């Protein structure tokens, strides 16, 4: 066989113009090829390119491209929702080794929490407690909204610089040196104890923020009282906040009532008393439950056909913002719109328990609430029967009798 060089192969390819068409090479083509290659006819058999299996493929080189694209399209498509069924996990998935980044504190189990008593200034609304803050308040004015939080943290006694700088950092201020601290802190009275107060303002997420913080160190904890909001409101509210601080009383969780009495100024009554001290008659069928935050007693009333309701009792040394604010807070709990003074008059019925006592009847679909506010001496008693409408209606009389009985 004649040795073919690569250049001859190219000539061969050039000569076979039939390659990309479907027609078979004509005898003349073949002869031309052969003559180009200067080969005897018999040797030229393997130059019948269109018949070679590989040669067949190249008629459509695009098929290869298409196949490759299809392969990729099939493999690349991972953006889809999958559904599958697996055996139930018996144990929770173990924690994989945490990345080098850092560690975050695990949400801790709720321990018994201290209780608070205070006189709520006019215009402040109780916003309940959260995981961290024992009490939150909202101050709504025409100029905007400000907030107050009361939060106990692990004791930071002797670390005043750290406390102040912690806040400064939050609003993008440079930390202060120990020597600069004295000018920042002003003494303030918090519930008969000595505390300190400081103010900072700065930018946070592009907005000007002003924060007034008071704090006092107690056994094992530092209590922080924060007033935060727009400048105009804070200027007006600062004296109110300072007055409010004087009225705050803390009852440590598990501490006897005497503890509260000890720290409380003589004029301010204790916030809560042990249940055993109550003289009231608990209606038959009511089940005593552990009282929650800021409550002195809690009961479950008998269930009616699956309908359940509970009774909550709280005592405060003030009217905590007045009847209107409290009724509207209750309405909100039921998903009802707030009412105005006139709406309250239409809602409330006087209660024969004490002068100024009132009862409100609230209902929203299957949920209902009976609320009573009873001023007794220097304290305001708040009673609430809330739950499924059927149970609340059935228990109405027993509840009213309970509210009327002297505690």
């Amino acid at each position, binding site marked *: *066989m004649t040795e*073919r060089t690569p250049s001859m*192969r190219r000539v061969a*390819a050039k000569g076979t113009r039939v*390659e*990309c068409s479907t027609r078979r090479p004509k005898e003349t083509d073949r002869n031309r090829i052969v003559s180009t290659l200067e080969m005897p006819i018999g040797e030229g058999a393997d130059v019948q390119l269109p018949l070679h299996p*590989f*040669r067949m*493929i*190249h008629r459509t*080189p*695009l098929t*290869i*491209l298409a196949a*490759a694209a299809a*392969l*990729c399209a*099939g*493999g*690349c498509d*991972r*953006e*889809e*929702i*999958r*559904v*599958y*069924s*697996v*055996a*139930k*996990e018996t144990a*929770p*998935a*173990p*924690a*994989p*080794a*945490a*990345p*080098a*980044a*850092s560690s*975050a*504190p*695990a*949400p801790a189990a709720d321990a018994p929490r201290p209780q608070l008593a205070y006189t709520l200034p006019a215009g402040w609304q109780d916003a309940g407690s*959260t*995981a*961290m*803050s024992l009490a*939150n308040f909202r101050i709504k004015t025409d100029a905007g909204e400000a907030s107050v*939080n009361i*939060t106990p943290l692990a004791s930071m006694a002797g670390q005043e610089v750290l406390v102040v700088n*912690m*806040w400064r950092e*939050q609003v993008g201020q440079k930390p202060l040196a120990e020597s600069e601290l004295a000018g920042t802190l002003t003494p303030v009275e918090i519930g008969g104890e000595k505390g300190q107060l400081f103010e900072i303002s700065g930018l946070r997420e592009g907005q000007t923020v002003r924060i007034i*913080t008071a704090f006092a160190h107690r056994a094992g904890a530092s209590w*922080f009282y*924060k007033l935060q909001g727009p400048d105009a409101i804070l200027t007006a509210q600062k004296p109110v906040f300072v007055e409010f601080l004087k009225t705050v009383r803390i009852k440590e969780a598990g501490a006897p009532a005497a503890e509260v009495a000890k720290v409380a100024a003589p004029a301010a009554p204790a916030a809560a008393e042990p249940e055993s001290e109550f003289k009231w008659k608990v209606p038959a069928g009511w089940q005593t439950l552990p009282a929650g935050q800021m409550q002195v007693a809690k009961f479950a009333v008998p269930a009616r056909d699956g309908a359940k309701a509970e009774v909550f009792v709280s005592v405060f040394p003030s009217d905590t913002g007045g009847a209107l604010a409290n009724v509207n807070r209750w309405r909100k709990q039921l998903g009802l719109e707030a009412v105005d003074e006139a709406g309250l008059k239409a809602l409330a019925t006087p209660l024969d328990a004490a002068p100024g006592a009132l009862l409100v009847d609230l209902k929203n679909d299957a949920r209902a609430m009976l609320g009573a506010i009873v001023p007794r001496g220097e304290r305001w008693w708040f009673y609430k029967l809330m739950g499924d409408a059927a149970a609340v209606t059935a228990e109405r009389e027993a509840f009213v009798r309970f509210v009327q009985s002297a505690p």
Partner: protein
Amino acid sequence: MKLLWKFFTSLRLTVALLALSVLLIFFGTLSQVDEGLWKAQKIWFESWIVIWQHLQLFGWKFTIPIFPGGYLIGTVLFLGLTAAFIKRFTWRWDKLGVNLTHGGVILLLLGQLLTQELALESYIEFKEGETKGYAEHHRDNELAFIRDAGDGREEVVVIPESMLKTGAEIRHEKLPFTVRVKEHGLNCQIRRRGPLVDGPATATQGAGTQVTVEPRAEAKDMDSRNLPYAYIELLAGGNSLGTWLVTPWLPMLGSAAQVIEVGGQKLRTELRFERYYQPFEMTLLKTSHEQYRGTDIPKNFRSRVRVVDGKTREAREVDIYMNHPLRYAGLTFYQARMGKDPDDPQRGTSALQVVRNPSWLAPYVGCYVVGIGMYLQFRLHLVKFLGKRLGGVRQGGLGAISARVLEVGVLGYLVFKFTLNLFGY
């Protein structure tokens, strides 16, 4: 068509593509400094076109292609090589070497493409005594909604993290609600909410109401992984069920599962590392972690595992250690990491790298074929050259036969030895 054929079979194309490959590798390597290994790989090698996305003009974002990506170069190179191979192929003994070499290179390229598309790398991380039936991806995450399906089984609907774009609304026939992604971040840190310093919580339901998310920059180095987060609002019948925070941090910190109740159904949700369930379970029995005395240099990492396959009723114990992976059910398990349980320092932990690569043999076979092809080619030329220089060796002589026997023997031994090594014997 003819033009296209000419284009793909031209030698210039191959040379140009090889030059582009060199540049691609150069740029891709430099890019790792800023982008990190994974992202640089995605941008330069696992793409068709390298796109420059940072240009902004009059508020418009421009995407400008700046370089052919690895896929494009590889595909065109593969097509060109295949086309040239077809065009120039001749079946003759003296061409066998060249043909084998080219065929081998085509196989290498094809194998790489298949590996790229089909291979999957994941990890099983467990403590001694723990059993796992799934592996987890080391970078990708998924949002899972899990519902009790009865008979001790659970139905899982998983949404890949790539779909969780801020503002996206995701619906699926198996989900009783629409998932609206309010916010999504690639990496974050979480901490307990500080009511003194934090504003109102974005999450209104679940554990997210008690934590604050601090977005972090995307982790780019190889050793750390991103822990993403998303605030998802669930909408059923036009009403919002609330907003949940989902992030792998929550289960990692021991937070209880977040349960969503809708229409009498209870669904659990979590944003977790992407899972790949296997038809068998693996229990870590024992870890051995030996170090050279007086040093921290590892001498031997060894995990003893029990594999229980419910389908084949197979149960066996295997040792997995350095250079001795376990190949089972199309997967390869390599010893990857070892450690101690932070809660119980006596208890060892082990991480196995799980690789599924159906085309794992392709590069080896490709290399064999290229090697043999090159050997044949050089041998042919060497024999010819020596024949011319020394005057031909007499065919059929004792010297020629013994030389042939020696050659086949040495070659056979080498191939045999390599093959044994390849399969871990």
